[in-house]
């Protein structure tokens, strides 16, 4: 099933054709996918911000942004530019170094996690062996940044918001890691490529969501909590804490928090679609389409079709989840902190532990359905 384009190989061959050695070709190639993914992430954020404003407007029977570009699509860019030229204020009583380091420490791991997000068989930056585990590790750096900025602000609201953010992140990280473990158990690999390939075969029927329905729901709830989206946006609860850990932030540092939270949301949606919804896989198996069109599986048309539909399917699935997250944000009330901790520790943790053990037991009993 090794179809799909290998861009790196063709690019390196092209450079070698120009008379460059393979090491230099590799070094020239190295930053290209990274910059491409970075641009994709930023464009994804702009689209999501626009969607959020339009959907929230629709939910509240308003029109939303409409003047900047057609239907207001340029509004997020205008917002970004405005924040770029805003004055940077560091409160006199704050700790300047930690105050600046906080948003950087929040943003960098979130961007770095895109290293393992595949958009196709060979369309990812690097297929590192530990794959999804790298994401789990990187996502635990973020609470440090939140705690840091909350503490450095020397503001009561910020401090409480930072503590809440850290407590919330660590409470929901364990059910999240355990539901990822059940997927790893079925795949026998941590690589995101292997996880998606294991779900191909029978189209929509072989997606992990049917074999891991509990894991899917637990993962989605935890992902929303990790992104601090409503109904779990306690760290920045406006009515109680003004804006939580970002209260004292203005200008570009505020924009970094904003960017980080939206990149994290899209990343979570992408990971849900990779882990549970078949990643770049088309709902109908490619073999069936090839048979229907009377073409062999390795025909050029089928190859181009699978490669181009892969990106579209990944983005489509992710944005469906982003849409659900936005609708949830504008239609659900916020939970209380004791309810949040109860949900994490007394409900999701036992459920995800049981889910892991049941998956292991089922894998022993029916190896053919649970990845051998």
């Amino acid at each position, binding site marked *: 099933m090794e179809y799909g384009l290998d861009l790196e190989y063709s690019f390196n061959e092209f450079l070698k054709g120009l008379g460059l050695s393979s090491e230099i070709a590799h070094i020239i190639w*190295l930053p290209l996918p*990274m*910059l491409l993914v*970075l641009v994709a992430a930023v464009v994804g954020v702009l689209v999501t911000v626009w969607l959020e404003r339009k959907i929230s407007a629709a939910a509240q029977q308003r029109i939303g942004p409409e003047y900047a570009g057609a239907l207001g699509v340029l509004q997020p860019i205008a917002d970004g530019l405005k924040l*770029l*030229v805003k*004055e*940077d204020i*560091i*409160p006199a*009583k*704050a700790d300047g170094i930690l105050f600046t380091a906080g*948003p*950087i420490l929040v*943003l*960098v791991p979130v*961007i*770095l996690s*895109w290293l393992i997000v595949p958009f196709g068989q060979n369309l990812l930056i*690097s*297929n590192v062996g530990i794959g999804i*585990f790298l994401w789990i590790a990187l996502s*635990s750096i973020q609470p440090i940044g939140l705690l840091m900025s909350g*503490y450095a*602000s*020397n503001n*009561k609201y910020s401090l409480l918001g930072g*503590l809440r953010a850290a*407590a919330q992140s*660590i*409470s929901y990280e364990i059910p999240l*890691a*355990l539901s990822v*473990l*059940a997927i*790893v*158990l079925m795949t*026998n*690999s*941590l690589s995101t490529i292997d996880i998606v390939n294991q779900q191909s075969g029978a189209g929509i029927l072989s997606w992990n969501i049917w074999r891991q329905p509990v894991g899917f729901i637990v993962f989605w709830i935890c992902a929303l909590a990790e992104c601090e989206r409503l109904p779990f946006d306690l760290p920045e609860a406006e009515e109680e804490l*003004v804006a939580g850990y970002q*209260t*004292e932030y203005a*200008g*570009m*540092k505020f924009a970094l928090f904003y960017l980080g939270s939206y990149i994290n949301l899209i990343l979570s949606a992408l990971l849900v679609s990779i882990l549970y919804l078949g990643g770049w896989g088309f709902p109908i198996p490619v073999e069936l389409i090839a048979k229907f069109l009377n073409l062999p599986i390795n025909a050029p048309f089928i190859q181009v079709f699978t490669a181009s539909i892969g990106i579209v399917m990944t983005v489509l699935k992710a944005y469906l989840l982003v849409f659900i997250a936005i609708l949830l944000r504008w239609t659900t009330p916020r939970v209380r902190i*004791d309810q949040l*901790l*109860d949900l994490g*520790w*007394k409900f999701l*943790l*036992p459920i995800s*532990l049981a889910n*892991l*053990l049941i998956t*292991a037991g089922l894998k*022993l009993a029916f*190896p053919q359905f649970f990845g*051998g």
Partner: protein
Amino acid sequence: MFLLTGYEYFLGFLLIAAAVPVLALVTNLIVAPKGRTGERKLTYESGMEPIGGAWIQFNIRYYMFALVFVIFDVETVFLYPWAVAFNRLGLLAFIEALIFIAILVIALAYAWRKGALEWS
């Protein structure tokens, strides 16, 4: 060149990812107005004069959760290699993991019973 293949991408992406906030902040430093002081540097406290600082000693109620978190986080780290190699290990590994998780579930039940998971 590198001991672990594939990780030169990690290093490169780390540099690019770190460059994003740094570049944004430097641009902000260049183009944004500055040098104004006074009231704007005051800590925000809903429009009131701030009473005292935030760097005081108070009861952080989440520390019990943090302790329980460490236990379960280490547990998941131990379970990852088990999950990856499960198809080669078979029934014995399943029973071993069952015992391992059972011990932790007892610990969770104990913490629950003792009220470590209560907010108030």
